[in-house]
């Protein structure tokens, strides 16, 4: 008994320490095929656990179609579908490539990606660019305006940001996202569905460098307006930072700490540090939310996206008490936001050393989801999330709150018992 108790305690302490000490720095922008290990032509990365076209939900199918059209592998949705069903286009989860993407999370080979480097543990993680809200690829929209915006991001935004970040790297090694997240939590963000402060902080860092890139003033203004006009500009960078943090705590023998929580619109899946890259899955639940005009719960797709990596790393929904204004976006009340954060302490290993919540007397955020505590209490992680329409091609219809299904933690626990039991 004492032996397994000691082993788990030691492993979890190490896992959570690494999660908190990880130091994710934004260091580069490049093309997915050149940056992401294992990325190649005709490979599409998607959010959540492994998925087939047949099982994919509407918004995921829409995003796959859109990415294929963007890549110019097909001209029509029908041709795009054929490429997937024939096996020519292969689908793989982002997480196995150390990448993450919000909602459908599709990353295709020629898409520009941000590169995050964990200065403390040496890992590199990747994410795509945020397109804004509404009709966007990650919510399953693939109309001409969506594809055109993606191409503009590739041809205009990415080269400028590449020049910016390379200059910043020369100057001071990159942009510290741990610092941005820590500050943004003090300024009313939760850093999952509210990135208003984080986006301002990022712009404060990069704008002087944008001016020095040599790009035309018109281009700089266009890109600045695009970045500043979208409070989710920093979401993807925050997610890749969270991926770096959780990656640092992954694959530690005996650890019961969750290192991935994600959804593909059909299923929800998790990884547990001591159980490696094994997915534990269950059907994805549908969030309760605040709906854009003209839409309702009946239109909603089950939960979708890698963005719950933020809660896995100890912020996002777990830090909702830091972000009272978020309830106007995801619903509920300030009291509910506080209750969610407070409840998450019951299923986490510790309080974060660096991410704190002013309203809770600067208590650290609940950090390191422990599957044992979920099993013992029956409390499951609660996150906030965007909501996609269930049909492909429509896009975002709201935002809300959702809890992960108990089933995935039960499956993981049973595997843990098998792996580490006597």
């Amino acid at each position, binding site marked *: 008994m004492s032996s397994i*108790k000691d082993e788990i305690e030691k492993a979890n302490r190490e896992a959570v320490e690494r999660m908190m000490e990880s130091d994710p720095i934004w260091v580069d922008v490049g093309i997915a095929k050149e940056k992401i290990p294992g990325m190649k032509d005709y490979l599409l990365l998607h959010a959540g656990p492994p998925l087939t076209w047949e099982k994919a939900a509407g918004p995921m199918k829409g995003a796959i179609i859109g990415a294929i059209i963007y890549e110019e592998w097909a001209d029509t949705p029908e041709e795009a579908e054929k490429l997937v069903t024939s096996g020519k286009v292969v689908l793989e989860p982002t997480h196995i490539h150390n990448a993450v993407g919000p909602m459908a999370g599709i990353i295709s080979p020629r898409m520009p990606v941000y590169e995050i480097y964990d200065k403390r543990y040496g890992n590199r993680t990747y994410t795509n660019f945020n397109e804004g809200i509404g009709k966007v690829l990650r919510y399953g929209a693939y109309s001409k305006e969506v594809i055109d915006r993606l191409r503009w991001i590739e041809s205009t935004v990415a080269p400028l940001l590449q020049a910016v970040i390379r200059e910043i790297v020369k100057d001071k090694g990159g942009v510290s996202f741990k610092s941005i997240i820590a500050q943004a939590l003090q300024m009313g963000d939760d850093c999952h569905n509210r990135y208003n402060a984080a986006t301002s902080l990022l712009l404060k860092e990069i704008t002087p460098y944008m001016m020095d890139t040599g790009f035309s003033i018109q281009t700089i203004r266009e890109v600045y307006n695009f970045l500043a006009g979208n409070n989710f500009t920093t979401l993807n960078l925050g997610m890749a930072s969270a991926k770096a943090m959780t990656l640092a705590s992954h694959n530690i023998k005996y650890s019961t700490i969750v290192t991935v929580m994600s959804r593909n619109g059909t299923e929800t899946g998790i990884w547990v540090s001591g159980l490696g890259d094994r997915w534990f899955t269950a059907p994805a639940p549908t969030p309760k939310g605040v709906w854009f005009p003209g839409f309702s719960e009946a239109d909603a797709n089950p939960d979708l996206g890698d963005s719950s990596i933020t809660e896995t790393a100890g912020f996002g929904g777990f830090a909702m008490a830091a972000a009272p204004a978020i309830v106007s976006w995801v619903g509920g009340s300030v009291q509910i936001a506080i209750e969610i954060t407070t409840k998450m302490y019951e299923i986490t290993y510790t309080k974060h050393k660096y991410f704190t919540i002013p309203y809770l007397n600067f208590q650290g955020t609940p950090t390191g989801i*422990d599957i044992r505590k979920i099993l*013992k209490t029956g409390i499951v992680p609660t996150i906030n999330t965007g909501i996609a329409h269930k049909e492909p091609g429509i896009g975002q219809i709201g935002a809300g709150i959702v809890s992960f299904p108990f089933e995935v933690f039960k499956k993981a*626990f049973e595997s843990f*018992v098998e792996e580490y*039991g*006597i």
Partner: protein
Amino acid sequence: MVYRLNASTIGKRSKEILDDLIYEPVIHHVFPNTLYLEADGEMIIVTRKDNRSPHTINTSQDSLNRSFQSYVKVRDKVEVDDSYIRVGELEIELRDAEIYTPIEIVKIRDVDDSLEKLFWKGLNSIMILYSISSSCISILELDGFREFLKNVVYPFSRRNVEAVKRIEEYRALLGLGGGFTPSGDDFLLGFISIVNLVDEELQVPKIVLDEDVLFNYTNWVSGMFLKYAQHGLYDEHLHQLLTSLSLRDEEIFTDSLLQLVRRGHTSGLDISLGVVTGLASIIDILKSRGLTEKLIKDVLNISL
């Protein structure tokens, strides 16, 4: 102002007690969501929680969710009618309550590999979940518990059937540890429940503790739970766990174990440990698999 709640279920035994009542019941213990009543020497539990038992009246949730402690105190008398029970300003409507009658559990008539598999799965799950608690002393570290394993459980598993009759050893375990139902009692509850589930034909002795022993060495509520367990009356989650073992149903076993372990700080874990320890003993008595020795020596690090 009267605070009214509706009972959603009423346990069969509590219905019988209320129907045949001689004396006015009194309140024995009050918690925010649970009341313990003494009625003609029997126990009735009134609770907002959803765990049913033959002795429990489950009330529906209401939006006010007021603490029972605001309405009721110990020794208050309980007024009982055909359709309600009332204590002070708290009234519980019984009219629409569904009667909970547990299905009789099939006795354990043999032991096999699948039962042994469930033993290992249960034991490993319990040990991993015990590992969460770092702030309190668990039963595993208490001398009385360790002595009980050495002096009762181990010899019992080696077919020394007299060992389970050593009343003085039970005295050391009863009332041991923390919690409203002490850890030692919880362990014993699980142990007795599974051992007494073995078919008489297999000649594994039943464990029956005299009421003198039960009520002199632990509190009344915990003693009543033990008394009822000796007669095959359990709450729903323990009932399901025992049923799953009888049927060798791994899925129900896992689900009911995971329900049970949520109870209290370690109460559910202690009961579950009692069940798997009793199971090891039974398997050893009937098949000599050495499971009890492994559990005591290798898992709990107790030298024999």
